[in-house]
């Protein structure tokens, strides 16, 4: 099995970030005047999507080579 670790990392960060951002958007709890749940959730979603993009780009560039040889 050749699992690209960026897929699980990206999926984990994106799903946790989504939960956190939704919590922040609905409940609107603040710390020192900042809605940290929402902000940090967005940061996690962006990082997670970034990891997924890197994994997708790698597999997209590897696929044509694989199909050409096989």
């Amino acid at each position, binding site marked *: 099995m050749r699992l690209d670790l960026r897929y699980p990392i990206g999926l984990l960060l994106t799903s946790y970030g989504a939960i956190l951002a939704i919590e922040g958007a609905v409940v609107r709890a603040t710390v020192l005047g900042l809605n940290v*749940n929402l902000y940090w959730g967005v940061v996690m979603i962006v990082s997670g999507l970034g990891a997924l993009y890197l994994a997708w780009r790698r597999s997209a560039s590897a696929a044509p080579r694989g199909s050409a040889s096989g």
Partner: protein
Amino acid sequence: MALPLMMSRYYPAGLLGLGLTALLASFMSGMAGNVTAFNTVWTFDIYQSYIRPRQSDAHYLWMGRMATVFGVLVSVATAYAAMRFNNIMDMLQLVFSFVNAPLFATFLLGMFWKRTTGHGAFWGLVAGTGAAALHYEVTGVIGAISLLPKIAVVHAYPSDMAQNFWGAIVAWTTCFVATATLSLATTPKADGDLRGLVFGLTPRSANPEAAWYQRPAVLAAVVLTLTLALNMVFW
């Protein structure tokens, strides 16, 4: 315990869960590393080398798994012992004074002095750990209840940490002297066996052509400078 305290004080529901998840994940990965190191050292370096050599792979795999189970059970038991200490740092430093301080002397001699022998290192380590145990048994801490009964208290330290540090000094010195003395009294190892293990006998792979971010000395200097700067800012 500063981190959980900060989290429970400042994190709202949501981020608190994420913080606890991250904390548990880091504890688990640290534990996983320790358990892996434990079963590897036991199975490869002790069991295979000295107790039962030339067995099948299946046999060693089984022994490795049993060592894992044993190691986890011991860590669970340690957690109960840890509850009897004022704080986790006191206990950690006590364990370090028994284990890490003499081991540091062993590694230092083993890596930088080619005359060190296996017997010298082993018995030096035993002597160092024994010295730490003896130090713990004959000294006390003012106003503290000891975990183990003492043989005799010849000196009382003002704090747990003072006792731990002096214990570490005693253990390190004993191990260093015992390892060096016993090594000189036993047959030296051939230089060929020590290539790649002892600093003086290992060819250095310096690469002056590497870019600055690939050179350890440059990176170390950067980290040291940043550490110093942060210490000055947050003094």
